[in-house]
């Protein structure tokens, strides 16, 4: 089929039905809609995190047009000038392929509460923009153009991703040090832009296929990328009072070359190799990094019953950090030495096998070894020079009956010299999935995942005295359960329901700093077996009903409950507070949606869609809020 000849010319054409080739005719078809969305909200916009909180005109367009050899398509949805989506494409034969995907979104951000009393002058909270609402607009445009040589698989391609964030965010920061402590919150206008371009070409070179691509990305942080503030003097750290820069968002750029090479995909033995080189640069601090990446994939299927898959990944990251940085205040210039960032080499080998002795059973087993070797880690005091991970995974995919499918997998990981306390020494993960379809109109899906982690000898760095502690342990357990049911009660009534439960529990020994006497630190306090948990229950119900041929009704209800707890102890004794109370979590979120569509004629539809979202912050009430939207929509088919 890859040949450009007419297949009908190449066949023997025996006793066919004797039809002649008909003329080609494609009618342009599509639908255009226009509507208006009314929106009302109460209190916090947490319930409408991604909704532009104002009423707006809406429209949409779906279009497919194929005046061969040209093809066009457009799928567009415009909810407001802050909230839109468009996917447009053009093709000429298979020689020119163009596509542009444009997305615009609005994100309502939290304004964290700074209205605490503090303890002036030792501790002061200042919110410089009390009551300000924070939000950003996000725009992403992904353009791709592919040009192909006629009658030969040689392509050149270009892609460009433009990302833009614009709006006002809350900038929180510490002005100075502990003595005194000034915690500041203020508004910050942002206007960030990123442009990433990829150019490349690929083709056959004898028995293999080869691709070369060049990538370049630039990030421009806009006009407000450096903030300045008047810092008090710090006696302890010998820094004079001055106006210093802070919370800098640097301009960065990167470029990469990559080569890909592979054999035919169709063989019993298929090999693919990739080599790429990435350089990244920070134009503010002049920090640079170079990354080499290599990959080799090989699959060998000697027989339909057996498959072997080998993967190798290599990554070398070389950080080039300036040795000294100058902090330029308005009237002061201070030099500080800087430790090198972590450079590392990482190699990952994995071998997977698949054995399918029959149509009802498939067994998969894999082993993966990962080796990470760090450089300059001694300066960091905490990180091991090497970390290794061994992973074994076994999976059984069984279809004991026509109506039942079961998948069970178990994964065991062993970590040698884990770098961070969140990385365990050993972990186990069990996953069970069942799909049961007793009748064509009923489907039941069940999934349970259990993850267990264990870690001994946690690593904490104490500053005064400067010592690394290796003690304490951590045990984690995560349970996830999902049950979903989809049923077609009649040709006119579809119902789906689901329940998702997840809980994460961890018990970990924590450390808190300790004074021995004024100006002299001590080994830390240990808070043993601090329990931390997150729990959520999500319920969803949706219904689609066709009471008449010309009326469609869709209704949905979602309800999510979340709760988080932690149990820090009072390690000093007599503390007039509970640390746990500062990070409590208890909330629920309810979503109700109703959509009614009426077909007025072959060309015209009328629809109304309403949604109510309610967020109930049961812990602090700060994020309580409601958002109600109603959209009236008219559609015209053409």
């Amino acid at each position, binding site marked *: 089929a890859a040949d450009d000849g007419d*297949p009908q010319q190449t066949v023997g054409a025996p006793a066919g039905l004797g039809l002649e080739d008909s003329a080609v005719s494609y009618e342009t078809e599509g639908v255009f809609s226009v509507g208006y969305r009314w929106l009302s909200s109460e209190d916090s916009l947490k319930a409408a995190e991604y909704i532009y909180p104002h009423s707006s005109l809406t429209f949409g367009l779906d279009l497919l047009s194929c005046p061969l050899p040209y093809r066009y398509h457009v799928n567009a949805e415009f909810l407001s000038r802050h909230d839109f989506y468009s996917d447009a494409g053009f093709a000429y034969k298979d020689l020119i392929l163009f596509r542009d995907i444009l997305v615009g*979104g609005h994100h309502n951000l939290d304004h964290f509460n700074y209205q605490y009393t503090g303890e002036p002058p030792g501790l002061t909270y200042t919110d410089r923009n009390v009551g300000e609402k924070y939000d950003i607009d996000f725009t992403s445009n992904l353009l791709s153009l592919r040009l192909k040589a006629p009658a*030969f698989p040689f392509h050149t391609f270009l892609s460009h991703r433009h990302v833009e964030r614009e709006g006002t965010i809350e900038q929180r920061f510490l002005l100075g040090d502990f003595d005194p*402590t000034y915690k500041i919150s203020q508004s910050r206008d942002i206007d960030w832009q990123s442009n990433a371009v990829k150019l490349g070409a690929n083709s*056959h070179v004898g028995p293999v296929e080869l691709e070369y691509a060049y990538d370049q990305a630039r990030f421009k942080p806009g006009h407000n990328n450096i903030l300045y503030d008047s810092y008090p003097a710090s006696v302890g750290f010998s*820094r004079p009072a001055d106006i210093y820069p802070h919370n800098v968002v640097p301009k960065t750029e990167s470029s990469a070359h990559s080569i890909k090479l592979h054999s035919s995909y169709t063989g019993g033995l298929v090999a693919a190799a990739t080599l790429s080189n990435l350089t990244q640069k920070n134009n503010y601090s002049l920090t640079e990094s170079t990354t080499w990446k290599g990959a080799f994939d090989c699959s060998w299927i000697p027989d339909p019953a057996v*498959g072997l898959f080998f993967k190798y990944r290599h990554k070398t990251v070389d950080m080039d950090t300036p040795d000294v940085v100058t902090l330029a205040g308005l009237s002061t210039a201070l030099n500080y030495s800087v430790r090198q960032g972590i450079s590392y080499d990482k190699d990952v080998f994995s071998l*997977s096998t698949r054995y399918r002795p029959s149509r009802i059973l498939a067994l998969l087993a894999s082993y993966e070894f990962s080796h990470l070797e760090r450089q300059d880690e001694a300066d960091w005091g905490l990180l091991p020079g090497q970390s290794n991970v061994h992973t074994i995974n076994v999976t059984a995919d069984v279809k004991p009956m026509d109506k039942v499918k079961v998948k069970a997998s178990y994964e065991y990981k062993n970590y040698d010299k884990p770098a961070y306390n969140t990385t365990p020494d050993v972990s186990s993960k069990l996953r069970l999935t069942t799909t049961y379809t007793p009748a064509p109109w009923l489907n039941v899906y069940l999934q349970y995942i259990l993850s267990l982690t264990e870690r001994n000898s946690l690593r904490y760095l104490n500053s005064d005295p400067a010592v690394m502690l290796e003690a304490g342990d951590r045990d984690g357990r995560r349970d996830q359960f999902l049950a979903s049911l989809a049923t077609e009660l009649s040709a006119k009534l579809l119902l789906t329901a689901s329940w998702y439960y997840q809980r994460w529990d961890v018990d970990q020994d924590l450390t*808190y700093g300790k004074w021995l006497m004024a100006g002299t630190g001590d080994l830390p306090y240990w808070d043993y077996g601090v329990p931390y948990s997150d729990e959520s229950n999500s319920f969803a119900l949706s219904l689609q009903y066709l009471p008449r041929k010309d009326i469609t009704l869709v209704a949905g209800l979602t309800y999510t409950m979340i709760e*988080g707890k932690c149990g820090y102890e009072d390690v000093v004794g007599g503390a007039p507070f509970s640390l746990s109370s500062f990070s409590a979590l208890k909330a629920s979120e309810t979503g109700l949606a109703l959509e009614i569509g009426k077909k007025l004629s072959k060309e015209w539809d009328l629809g109304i869609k309403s949604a109510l979202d309610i967020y109930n912050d049961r812990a602090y009430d700060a994020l309580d809020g409601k958002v109600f939207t109603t959209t009236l929509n008219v559609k015209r088919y053409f």
Partner: protein
Amino acid sequence: CTGLKESKPILPIRAYEKMIVGNLYADYIGTQNCLAACHEHDKLKQFFDASTMGVQLKKESGMPLVDCESCHGPGSLAIKGLSRELVDENAKQGLKTPCDFKTLIDLKNLPATAQSLTCLKCHTANATFNLHNWNAGPHAVNEVSCFECHDIHAGPDLKVTPLASGKLCFSCHKSAQAQFALPSHHPLKEGRVFCVDCHSPHGGFADQGLLQDSVKETCVQCHPEKRGPFLYEHADVTEDCLNCHSPHGSVNSKLLNAREPFLCLQCHEGHRVNTAAGASISAEMARAFYTRCSDCHSTIHGSDVPSTSGLGRFSQ
């Protein structure tokens, strides 16, 4: 030129080749004798005509020609004994004239690898590089075929649109869908972020079928301000954003794996909780230290400015 564009397998995969070659006793009859001839296929023909594959049936498309038998195998045995007159006569009586479709390749019941091979035969010849890591990728290893995601009889260019990708992916990855229902989530259900923004279903360099070569390279596509490199890096923690964030959804704000300060205390010793005299710090100081670490350490993803201490404490 012909030799150059051939993509020959290193080692033929004979068992699957046999499955997709079709009936050796049948001959090719051309599309006009199958798709266009049978009323039963009217609807199928409409869908097909709108697709890239359908377009490729026509010379006018200017594309490499593909016909029904390219995938379904030779069809002469399927229409053996049929004639135009019989089809028309049955149609007049409201009857459909069935062909003997069992003589065609039983695509639906082929092993997944053989199904994919049907597609790969052409797509390797066309140097389709988004399939570069397909063969040892997670979908191929787990016997997910091209058919699961691409309906070759419908849709322009057979590409899954970004908006449709969520529904498609969630038909198998249901727990991922459930995670997007949590209060903190990327706007996927709102239709402003798509599975394919982060994942390549055809496989890639990184695990989890990520679109880019690492977790960080994937995230900084849309969060470029966190790309770096920075003068003060958070060691190599930020190489993997998943150390602190759950991208599909979380009960905690900002997609965090755990609430502050526990998130940070897992690895870092907390600030001092006693006074030099040995008593407990005050409630307000405790609140300042143990509510949100990021109130003060606001450049936690990397910083270019030394903190008051002269070190990289991410507070300036």
